[in-house]
């Protein structure tokens, strides 16, 4: 049994409705200390609604949310959360350094520690040279990094990132990935939502697939095992087979004997996602 203090976020059978629309249907989620937990689902699956209840912006209709054993409001008052909300934009007319300072001071970090935390956070996200620049003068990706720096500064116990990498280039995305890994390594818990399934696969210790309710849960490798096939692609002909492992062994053996170039691919988390939520017409 997990001790309560190891569990940073516990969500138990959470219900949330907006008028007649059910956004969360008995959702239960858990995030433990030093874990990266991803919540994946199609658009309108209720991921952001769930997170807004975790950081206390929405009240659940029923169910319980606790953060380190406290209500979200109390936890927030104690400054344990750093959050990048969905589609967040920074205060563009502040300087980069001022923005990070503002949010960590709201989290109650003592004045004496602020400077060091700001310097460290800006270095980690690669904005060390931009501290004195107006945010308005930065690119969209760099503005996103300002928000991430503000959320991770002073290493809060819980970091919530709601689609932090949407619309930014590969380099800046890699920077954010490194930040998430570093935060986890230092013991922070990270809850992440993303539409880049590969990102969740790279970073997560645990993944929840949800569409209003939790449909599947597990580590990326556990979820991949749901699909009992491997994909064999023959380079010369372009043919692709999806077959069970037993059958694949025979096919591979045959291809090797015939000296044909081929590739073998295991199911990815994206395959699982597509299997669970269906094709593009079914997701939504």
């Amino acid at each position, binding site marked *: 049994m997990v001790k309560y203090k190891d569990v940073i976020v516990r969500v138990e059978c959470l219900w949330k409705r907006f008028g007649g629309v059910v956004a969360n249907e008995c959702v239960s989620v858990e995030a433990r200390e030093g874990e990266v937990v991803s919540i994946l689902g199609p658009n309108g699956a209720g991921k952001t609604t769930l997170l807004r209840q975790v950081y206390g912006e929405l009240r659940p209709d029923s169910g319980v949310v606790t953060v380190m054993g406290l209500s979200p409001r109390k936890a927030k008052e104690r400054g344990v959360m750093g959050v990048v*909300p969905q589609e967040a934009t920074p205060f563009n007319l*502040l300087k980069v350094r001022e923005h990070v300072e503002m949010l960590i001071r709201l989290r*109650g970090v003592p004045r004496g520690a602020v400077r060091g935390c700001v310097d460290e956070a800006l270095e980690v996200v690669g904005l060390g040279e931009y501290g004195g620049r107006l945010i308005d003068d930065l690119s969209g990706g760099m503005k996103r990094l300002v928000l991430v720096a503000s959320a991770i500064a002073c290493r809060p116990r819980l970091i919530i990132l709601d689609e932090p990498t949407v619309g930014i280039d590969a380099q800046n995305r890699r920077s954010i990935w490194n930040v998430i890994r570093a935060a986890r390594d230092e013991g922070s818990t990270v809850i992440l939502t993303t539409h880049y399934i590969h990102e969740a696969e790279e970073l997560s210790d645990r993944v929840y697939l949800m569409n209003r309710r939790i449909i599947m849960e597990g580590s990326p490798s556990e979820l991949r095992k749901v699909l009992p096939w491997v994909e064999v692609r023959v380079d010369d002909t372009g043919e692709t087979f999806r077959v069970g492992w037993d059958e694949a062994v025979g096919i591979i053996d045959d291809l090797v004997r015939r000296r044909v170039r081929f590739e073998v691919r295991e199911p990815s988390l994206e395959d699982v996602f597509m299997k669970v939520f269906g094709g593009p017409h079914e997701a939504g």
Partner: protein
Amino acid sequence: MRLGRAMVISKYLLLSSRSWVYAAVSFTLIYPILWLVLLRVVGNPQYLQYFMVGTVVNTSFLTPFVATAQDMAHLRRASTRYTVLFSNGADHWDIALGYVVYMLLFTLPSIASTLLLLMVILGVHYSVVQVVVTLMTALVIVLSSSLLGYALGIGVKNYRITDQVSQVIPWPLLLLAPVYYPITILPQALRLVSLALPTTYMALAIHGSLVLNPAELFRAVSVFIIICGCSCSLVFKSS
């Protein structure tokens, strides 16, 4: 609510307004003085006192109400900056109070400067006590107007409606109430209407402060306490 958080919010809101400081100075200082100088040139000393009351009410009511309503609507509805503050430690009251303090920092120096410059330009004499009492009264007006603006800004889901409504509401409140002129020039029917308008009591309070009339000031401020209470309960419901 923690006062420290509200102060943090007001500090950084003030810093983020650095780029429109010239517009702010124009609207809150240069325009009122320009009007008063024109009034002097036209020359109607009978209305000078009322015009000064109107100028102070305009700065302490109109600016905080419109600015707070529009800024909050944009922070909350048009961008997610309100959520950035809220999710990282502030609660609704911290943000509301932070914005009120920001408005106070913005408007009170402007009102003090206007009064001082008026004395220089128009030769009116006010004692230190009159100026201080007027500023204290203006503080209460800014507080209640800003909270009303906050309630409107975060209560209405469509920020475009807030943008328009917040600009429309003040004009009847300023024109139908005896803000820029004595109540005696209003027709009887409009006098009754003006009694229901908060700006009437704002003008009475500022007038009572400038002429140091405790009875008038007390009556007007009593109504203000009710307006403040209503503003606070609106904020509470909106949040």
